[in-house]
């Protein structure tokens, strides 16, 4: 819905336009490879948009490569991953290891939420493993949107992340 016209990899002038346009920067909302549910994504796209961000919604069954590519080329201020099919724990671990293994994405805020296990909420240990593997926050289905809103509100403004060398090694 709010797909950017030009990508954030372009020069500083473009980025300045972006800030002047009043946006809080781009957030990518996405599924992971095994999950085809999209009502969660439609909802999150609207919610994140209402918080003042530009949203790029990658849709169902996003392959790991696509996630990495989109994050590298758009440099979002946050990646919001959603999983409700019960494979969120396994898929989340795989994806975050890959993204954190990619140097320029090491400090990109990445959160995961939804119905993450097949047996209801994850155990504390499982949530801990996801955080340890590199997620900045994990939101359980029962939690409601309050804690996520607070997390998003605390993100540095896009101006704060502007001085990034073109090749992105500064992250």
């Amino acid at each position, binding site marked *: 819905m709010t797909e950017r016209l030009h990508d954030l990899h372009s020069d500083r002038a473009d980025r300045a336009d972006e800030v002047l346009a009043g946006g809080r920067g781009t957030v990518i909302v996405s599924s992971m*490879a*095994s*999950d*085809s549910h*999209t*009502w969660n*994504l*439609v*909802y999150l796209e*609207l*919610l994140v948009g*209402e918080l003042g961000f530009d949203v790029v*919604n990658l*849709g*169902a*069954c*996003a392959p790991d490569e696509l996630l990495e590519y989109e994050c590298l080329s758009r440099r979002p201020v946050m990646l919001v991953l959603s999983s409700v*099919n*019960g*494979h969120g*724990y*396994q*898929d989340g671990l*795989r994806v975050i290891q890959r993204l954190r293994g990619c140097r320029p994405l090491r400090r990109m805020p990445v959160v995961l939420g939804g*119905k993450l*296990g*097949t*047996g*209801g*909420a994850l155990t504390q240990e499982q949530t801990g493993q996801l955080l340890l593997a590199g997620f900045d926050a994990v939101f359980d*289905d*029962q939690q409601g949107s309050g804690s996520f809103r607070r997390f998003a509100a605390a993100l540095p403004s896009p101006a704060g992340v502007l001085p990034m060398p073109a090749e992105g090694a500064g992250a």
Partner: protein
Amino acid sequence: MSFEEFVARSHAAGALVVQPRMGFGDPTAMRAGLAATRSARAVTVGTLTLDSYTRVRDTASAEHALRNGLPLNGYPIVNHPPEVTRGMLAGLMDADFPVQVRHGSARPADIFRAMIAAGLHATEGGPVSYCLPYSRTPLDEAVRNWAFCTDLLLAAEPEGGRPHVETFGGCMMGQLCPPSELVALSVLEALFFYRRGLRSISVSYAQQTNMEQDQEAVSALRGLCAELLPEATWHVVIYAYMGLFPRTEVGALSLLAGAAELAVTTGSERLIVKTTAEAHRIPTVAENVAALEHAHLAARATIHRATVAADNQVYREAAALVDAVLNCHEDLGRALVIAFKRGLLDVPFCLHPDNAGQARSFLDAEGRLGWSELGSLPLRGVVEQRRQAALTSSTLMSALSHVQSTHDALAFGDHETVAIGGQA
């Protein structure tokens, strides 16, 4: 006796066939689930629901889960060798207990091969309904895959009777799609199978938001199938609500009973149930059995039949959609692809890249689904478009949770309550 014969015989005897959506990664658990389905106090058929990795052809991740004891959301039929699946079914699947494979794959060739190798010949799907809600696979590729797999199944020539396929077109995204488009898609997918030579078909319709509108929809579905599938044996399968489910036990059971009532009042032959765990997590075997038995009792308690006009509003819209698609191309597979490209078919809220995304739906005061934006749907003059205020996260949530809250209210009264089941 085959799937179709079992359903026909049960219907003739006055019983609604009930069926779970059930799948576990481990063959022993899967077998226990089928055994419990078979011995439930209801007229049942069994289900093998496949896991999400298998659906997207990621056998490596399914393997990883099996090896590390991570739970899967279904049975990985491609990973388990055919002997294992045959052994899992041995002594359970027979003339009195047919088993159907339900998957949700736009690239199902390996699934079909594994299924056939294990002696299974009843399944579910469709070129559109197993693509748009289940993948980012291009629609024209899904159409080719489904044509190929239909041929595979027909070539298998099973001993126990003709192969059977059920359309998933009557469900699509599960919620907020006006019934006429669900009916049209279910009929078009049935016709797709029919034209490739399949003669044993079931057409689905998922319970939506208003009983009368749903009854009109099933009547429309029957009318169109009678016109378009003259030489097939077909029956109607109702799905208990496929959207956001009530969170309370009382609410979930009330909604399920409504689905059974819809099935019986419309003369439908089969019902796929949902459980009290639906809103929370994958249901246990016991929860599935309880749902089957509850639906059976609710069906038996329903004696009246619906009276709806054959030429009702849902029928008129569905017929216009079907006609427009058939006029796109003589090859129905091509026609479906062209129709989506032109927006003649356009599923509200579907993010798939091949869906136009111009059409929008809304819920009216009686809980009927209507069109707020027609986009390029060929329905001008057939139905009025009633524009709504711009969508926000909270208006979306309230449309999505209309059914949930209506039924949960039965449990809540006026009190603040705690959801059950989520903390299991």
